[in-house]
């Protein structure tokens, strides 16, 4: 909350204290004086709202190629961003310099961009009282996460073991890679409405990339799994199952025929199959799209936008899921947001700027890759809810169609047209999965496809993913049960 009184002149003792910068090796309550003073300066300059976002990152990646560790790459970074609102317009300035003067310079630059100036030396500076620090790192016992993660040696040992496992299960191997990364992030948010919150996030992921070749036939299969908040994730990775799955897929796709282009009924597998909903619908429910008027759903709240069999959620609370966050990057606790219920649009995904500009309430979805980005409305764990059908019932309903077992990436354009690559596909003939197919791309238009998802099975599955958009790359979960799309254009040869 912004408090206009009491005020103090020349920033008083508190401002003097604030100029002695707290340690940048820990972002905690010791930053209160510094940040509340800077927020007060921003308010006195005439800004409607000011927010500071401070970040420390300790990142490491490790790569095993065939039987050797070829890369261990640590990265350490610190930085801060300040966002200033004047009416509905805003600007964002980021810096590596976490000294008081460095942050003040960033604030001054942001204010000047908005046509505002810092107050003179004798001006009254309204103090901004910050709430008692909401410290999710302490509340949820995250302080020792980093030290409990795998050592460099353990990373190497696990990845070499994983690469050995896939070598034993696959045939015609040309290249095999196992990779791992650990992203430890400490964030502190302070804003002129009194928000003062700290969190530690720990995101880890392992993946396989297998290339097989036999003469002119080639197949490449990738698989990635991820987790948040589990320091022992890597050492607990049961890679045998993943190795078997990847090897089997690569073997089947090695001799696959190209799919014949056309319009087909399609059954999409669960887990990463959810990327279609993420791209074709989820992005269009972000308030950044409403601001740009690039979503066909902008004025459809309360209306039917999808088949009545479809209910969908976006949330940040599933334990250890890749998109789970205790608070968003604007300090708001994560929540569970119902997007679509039985085909009816219920809510949008909103951050602070989106809420200011569109009127839709914030949903704890203000996210960013790091301090160089202002937060924006972004998805977290997004999935279609399970339905009532048995899996076989979906297949039984298809005479000739395509089973999309493993989706690749995809994208949606400003007019709602989307496309998705299919990494592993099979022909369905009379309800049975028959020959493998390669080279398929699913093409459609968001408003149309949502009406054609006619059957959802009971087997909801989630998968880790990376989502790139206006505020950088963020960790997300996509998911769905197996589902049937009545007809969709499939690009092929």
């Amino acid at each position, binding site marked *: 909350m912004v408090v206009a009184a009491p005020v103090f002149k020349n920033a008083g003792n508190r401002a003097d204290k604030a100029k002695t910068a707290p340690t940048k090796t820990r972002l905690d309550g010791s930053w209160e004086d510094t940040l509340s003073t800077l927020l007060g300066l921003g308010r006195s300059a005439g800004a409607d709202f000011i927010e500071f976002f401070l970040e420390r990152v300790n990142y490491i990646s490790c790569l095993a*190629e065939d039987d*050797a*560790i*070829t*890369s*261990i*790459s*640590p990265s*350490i*970074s*610190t*930085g801060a961003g300040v966002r200033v609102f004047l009416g509905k*317009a*805003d*600007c*964002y*300035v*980021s*810096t*590596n310099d976490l000294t008081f003067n460095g942050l003040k310079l*960033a604030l001054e*630059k942001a204010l000047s*961009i*908005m046509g505002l100036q810092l107050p003179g030396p004798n001006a009254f500076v309204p103090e901004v009282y910050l709430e008692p620090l909401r410290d999710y790192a302490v509340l949820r016992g995250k302080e020792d996460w980093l030290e409990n993660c795998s050592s*460099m040696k353990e990373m*190497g040992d696990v990845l070499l073991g994983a690469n050995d496992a896939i070598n034993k299960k696959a045939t015609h191997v*040309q*290249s095999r890679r196992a990779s791992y990364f650990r992203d430890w992030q400490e964030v502190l948010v302070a804003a002129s409405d009194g928000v003062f919150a700290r969190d530690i996030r720990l995101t880890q992921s392992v993946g396989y990339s297998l*290339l097989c070749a036999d003469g002119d036939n*080639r*197949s490449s299969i990738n698989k990635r799994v991820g987790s948040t908040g589990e320091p022992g994730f890597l050492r607990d990775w049961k890679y045998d199952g993943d190795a078997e799955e990847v090897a089997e897929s690569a073997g089947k796709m090695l001799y696959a025929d*190209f799919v014949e*282009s*056309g*319009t087909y009924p399609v059954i999409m597998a669960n887990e990463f199959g959810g990327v279609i909903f993420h791209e074709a619908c989820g992005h269009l429910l972000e308030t950044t799209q409403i601001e*740009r*008027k690039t979503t066909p759903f902008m004025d459809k709240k309360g209306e039917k936008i999808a088949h009545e069999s479809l209910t969908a959620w976006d949330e940040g609370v599933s334990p250890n899921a890749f998109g789970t966050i205790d608070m968003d990057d604007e300090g708001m606790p994560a929540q569970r947001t119902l997007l679509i219920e039985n085909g009816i649009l219920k809510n949008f995904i909103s951050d602070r700027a989106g809420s200011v500009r569109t009127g839709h309430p914030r949903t704890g979805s203000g996210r960013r890759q790091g301090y*160089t980005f202002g937060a924006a409305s972004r998805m977290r764990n997004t999935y279609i809810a399970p339905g009532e059908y048995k899996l076989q019932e979906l297949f039984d309903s298809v005479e000739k169609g395509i089973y999309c077992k493993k989706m*690749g*990436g*995809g*994208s949606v*354009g*400003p*007019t*709602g*047209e989307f*496309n*998705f*690559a299919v990494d592993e596909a099979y022909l369905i003939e009379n309800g049975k999965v028959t020959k493998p197919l*390669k*080279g*398929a*791309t699913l*093409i459609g*238009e968001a408003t149309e496809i949502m009406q054609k998802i006619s059957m959802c099975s009971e087997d909801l599955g989630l998968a880790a993913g990376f989502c790139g958009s206006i505020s950088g790359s963020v960790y997300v979960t996509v998911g769905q049960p197996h589902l049937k799309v009545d007809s969709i*254009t499939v*690009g*092929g*040869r």
Partner: protein
Amino acid sequence: MLNIDTIASQAKDIAGKLNISKYDVSGSSIDSTSAQVDQGEPKQVKASQRSSVTVRVWNADGTVGITSTSDTDEAGLELALKTAHEASAFGAKDNIPDFSPEATAALADAKHERHDPAPVSTLLEKLVAAEKELLDAHEAIESVPYNGLSQTDTQRFYFNSNGAVRSEGGTYISTYLYTKTAQEGRRPRSAGAYRVAYGLEQLDIDGCIKETAEKTISHLDYEKIESGKYTVVFSPEAFLSLVGAFSNMFNAQSILDNRSLSTAESLGTEVAKSTLSIYDDALHSANVGATTFDGEGTPTRRVPLIEKGVLSGFLHSSGTAKRMGAEPTGHANMGAKITVSPHFYHITGNGEGDQSLSLETADNVVYIDELSALHAGVQALQGSFSLPFDGWLIKNGKKVSVESATVAGDFREVLKAIVQVDKEEKLSPSGVAPHVWVEGLSVTGE
């Protein structure tokens, strides 16, 4: 901006304290400002000042560790050197990288300009005017949802414990404009354009507006396209996108990793029609982001990749060059594992070959202006692609916008199915190229 002499001096002192005798450092400092507008009003302005360095350390056993940091003060540098030294214990035992043998060789002269940044108010004025002009260009243009004007001042450097020191920098400014249309009973359509220059006074904003408006209007009347095999004309930008997506074909590191469409033995083989030549040329006069040295300090140069249809060269780091008995080419990116990537393609037909095909007289030919979703629709290790595109079907020289379609094929087959490489070359952000005609590609529409 970072002071390279200060950082080099600090690194030397810290390395001495930590008993590190061999190290190198690559880094950059970037100061940027960008603006967006919405319906005549400023929407968001962003500014950032950021620096980062990557340090490599060789330990007493000769293995290498690396660490990157954005914390470029003395304490940050010390932590980075310590962490890199710790990581070096787990460094690769085979093919250990070394300093580039060309890290102190003379650098080419390249065009670098440094312009004073324009005031944010000027950026916003220019962008508001551009948006208005586009909205006035046709009643169907409802908005310009994606727009931006950004200016960047960069400095990059490299130095090592053997005394090599490199640095360079400059400014550039770019703009993009992307429209969206709304017409009763019609699908929304969109189109865009991009321009880049050293400074605002050189930036062709009018050209960007004109191109965006013309493209948008040309897409208003659209038709479905029948699926089938077509002769396809790739715009310079589209063909450059396709070449970039399959750049592993020229990448020596990918070849050594068995993750390329080429092998070491492919050199000298015919991989394309003889009318096609492809070079990578960081120093090309049209390259606004020209760099004179790579992440290992090796000078950049013009490298023939395909000359008259024959695979003529690969892109190398110092390590790949040593392993393959070649010269470094200045394409290395510093990392725990050195990677290799292209700078700026120059695709040309050298003015040779049949030039009888013309867009003015073409019939039943698909013109691909822009390829989309390359991150999803390209199987780079298999050579295949299936990509959505913006473009037109040309019937008797008349362009009709294609509603929604994909083009699919195999990159190696595309190179051999080229039927014409036009003489006229055009600049785009990733290089310079002419229109390229390819026969027999699969297009999926309805």
